[in-house]
């Protein structure tokens, strides 16, 4: 009976539903201490999008990401990732990559061993693991540092290792929780360009949290503006600028217009 019902739902002629990689319907999260972190969030993210979430501290951005990645489950509402509802997500671990705010590298492992970590949970030979890890290290430009230890790297390099680790399992969906927050502006901008290059070449979907409106607008196809108390998505702003985006984009009129609009939405 239940399955029949769900088939009926899926066959509803809403195009958004068919191609969406993440869809949230009336999702809320109440923590065990009674605090409502997010309330009635509705969103649908299509494959291949780059969506940034901006909003003040404490508005529930990380909470949403944790629900999408399956680290915590929603208290209410429906959450579908890659066409599967939150509860049967168990098999999908390789399809979602997560980059945390701090690089979260294991300090006792070399760079390449850190990158190989996600592969250790798949049935791969040592040689295959090494090959794939070297491939993504090349992608983030850290091939020469394969044998270095995390403490020997700069903050920006550690972040790149963390990104390589998230990419190594070839995720369809990449979640990045304020990955560049702790970096200086120059490193930040070069990593932004690098990320866009990787996003375009790997054909994946990226969800990105940031406090920085400029960063959000530069990177995204769409920006979700969140407001606190309790956290919800107040508006989404489309960014109709074409890719690949060069550094010139940052100084264009269109860019500052959109930044202005997003900033306006944030104030509500």
């Amino acid at each position, binding site marked *: 009976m239940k399955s029949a019902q769900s088939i009926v739902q899926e066959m509803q002629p809403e195009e958004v539903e068919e191609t969406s990689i993440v869809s949230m319907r009336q999702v809320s999260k109440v923590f065990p201490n009674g605090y409502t972190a997010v309330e009635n969030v509705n969103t649908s993210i299509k494959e291949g999008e780059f969506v940034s979430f901006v909003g003040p501290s404490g508005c529930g951005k990380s909470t949403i990401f944790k629900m999408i990645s399956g680290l915590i489950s929603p208290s209410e509402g429906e959450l579908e990732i890659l066409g599967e509802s939150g509860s049967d997500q168990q098999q999908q*671990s390789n399809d979602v990559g997560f980059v945390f705010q701090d690089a979260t590298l294991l300090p006792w492992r070399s760079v390449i061993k850190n990158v190989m970590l996600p592969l250790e949970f798949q049935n791969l030979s040592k040689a295959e693991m090494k090959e794939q890890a070297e491939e993504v290290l090349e992608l983030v430009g850290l091939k020469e540092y394969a044998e270095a*230890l995390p403490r020997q790297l700069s903050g920006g390099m550690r972040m790149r290792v963390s990104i390589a680790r998230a990419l190594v399992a070839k995720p369809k969906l990449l979640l990045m929780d304020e990955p560049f927050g702790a970096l200086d502006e120059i490193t930040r901008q070069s990593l932004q360009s690098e990320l866009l290059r990787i996003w375009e070449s790997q054909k994946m979907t990226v969800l990105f949290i940031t406090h920085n409106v400029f960063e959000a607008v530069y990177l995204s196809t769409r920006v979700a503006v969140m407001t606190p108390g309790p956290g919800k998505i107040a508006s989404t702003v489309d960014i109709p600028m074409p890719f690949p985006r060069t550094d010139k984009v940052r100084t264009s009129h269109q860019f500052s217009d959109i930044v202005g609009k997003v900033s306006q939405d944030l104030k509500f």
Partner: protein
Amino acid sequence: MEHTSDNLHVKERLEDHSKEREAAAKRRRNIMNNWVPPMITFLVFLSLWQFGTQWLQIPVYILPTPTDIIAASIQNSDRLLASATTTILESVIGFVFSVVIGVGAAVIMASSKILERSLYPYAILLQTIPIVAIAPIIVIWFGSGMNAIVIIAFTIGFFPMLSNTLIGLNATDRGMINLMQLYKASKWEIMWKVRLPAALPYIIAGLKISCTLAIIGAIVGEYIAGIGGGAGGLGYAITVASTTMEIPYLFACGIAASFLGIAFFLLVSLLSKVLLGSWHESEMNVEN
């Protein structure tokens, strides 16, 4: 042309040489700074002891001079060596047990909050009972031999291992555990790949405490249980020497015991350097 490039090479090599020499000099200065002051203190202390006791005419049975003690050690070197060997054996076995069981128990407690809550209080209780109070009971249960002494050495070294490891396992960075959960890692995979390595600095701090405690435990055990094995360990030798009034030999045994403790500690420190040297702050020569 060739001449000049040769010259350059020579110059480079000379510069290399001078750099090396500078580094060697720095190392030497470091050794000087670290070792010379305590050595001087030690020599001053020894000569004060030697000449002070001679000058004040303190009898040998109250305070023997360092030369008396050295003479007694050489005279009784066979006995001393046999006793030291017995003590080393007992304390090493006791230490190994306290490490294996301490870390094992910590892993079990860290993997289940219920187990931790129901077992840890008793581990603390065990720790608060003075060892001299339970030692006789252990001797009664396990006989006055090596077994009892090993168990006493184990008992005293166990708790630091347990509590240190447990703190380390519970202090693991939340982010690392989240990361592992993302990969759907099992509880034991998280334990093995993240929590235990992350706890290693704490475990090694426990090792440093337990290794010297194990020797104290062995000596206290011998004190109470007697012979122990072969000719009896240092603790037993101390009881014998004090009843037969061989005071210089008594001192020799005590000093040998503390040397054992130091040697044991240095070995564990070496192990710590090997295991943590590359990644942990406590063992790095940080240049900043």
